[in-house]
């Protein structure tokens, strides 16, 4: 084991080359890891948005479908003061209220607490009557979700059952 005591170390050139090579390897590896993690995050965001838009679409479709013509009102916002077309707030019957608050989809029933169904991703929530003649029979809505470069949007026309 005498060689451990040998005074022959590495030369400066050897050290520098080793350093350069290992930093190149480390840089490449970190770039790969960062891009993999970005890809993963982006994928899960996109999946979450798709799930949310599907959920919102089903929820609104079912709620509007159960409504009766003439009992659905579109307001400009949740203060329920200004009746508009199109608008961001939908009142079905006497109590159910769906509206956009900052970037959330909110549902409120009667005097109950507002429930934030989808948070921080609603870009557009818009209710409208597709045609003036059909306003007693049909309601359209458009939802667009957007979060950090991922987006998904859909529109739907729903006919009242009653």
């Amino acid at each position, binding site marked *: 084991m005498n*060689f451990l005591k040998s005074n022959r170390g590495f030369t400066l050139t050897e050290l520098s080359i080793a350093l350069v090579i290992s930093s190149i390897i480390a840089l490449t590896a970190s770039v790969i890891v960062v891009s993999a993690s970005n890809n993963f995050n982006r994928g899960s965001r996109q999946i979450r948005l*798709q799930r949310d838009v599907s959920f919102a679409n089903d929820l609104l479709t079912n709620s509007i479908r159960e409504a009766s013509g003439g009992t659905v009102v579109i307001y400009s916002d949740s203060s329920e003061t200004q009746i508009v077309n199109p608008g961001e707030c939908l009142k079905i019957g006497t109590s159910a209220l769906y509206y956009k608050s900052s970037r959330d989809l909110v549902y409120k029933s009667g005097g109950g607490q507002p429930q934030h169904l989808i948070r921080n991703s609603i870009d557009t929530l818009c209710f409208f009557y597709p045609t003036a003649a059909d306003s007693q029979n049909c309601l359209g809505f458009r939802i667009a979700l957007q979060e950090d470069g991922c987006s998904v*949007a*859909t*529109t*739907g026309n729903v*006919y009242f059952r009653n």
Partner: protein
Amino acid sequence: MIQSFSNKISAETGTTLVESIVAITLISVIMLGGFQFFVGGKSSINDSGFRRLAIIRAEERLEAANRFEYAVLADSLDETQTVVNLGDLTGLRTTVVTATDDPIDGLAGADLDGDPDDYKQITTTISWPLGGQNQVSLSTSVSADYRQ
């Protein structure tokens, strides 16, 4: 001992060309394989997004059946390759309404109520091009009393 170690250090046998080629090939195969996970994952996420939107579009078309009288269903709903919006892509929607004769009350002329048109089947198919033809198809049956 010192002698043998210094021999080892000064030995000039590195890796042969064949060894390094094999190593490089193995590494690139492994990296390509890993890369495929990203590409495949991304395209399947995209694909599922278009599929969801296509299902929503198809449901919307079936929903529209609610507007029309039974007698005019076929005239009102039948369509061939209407362009629909699927986010970043456009899809083509085809709706077919077919009269169906249910054997439960007799077939054709033997029908109890004399009407072989027992119910109508509405089928909506949406197709979109993305790495080959993708399509979803939804269908529903309605009887003459469906609006009551």
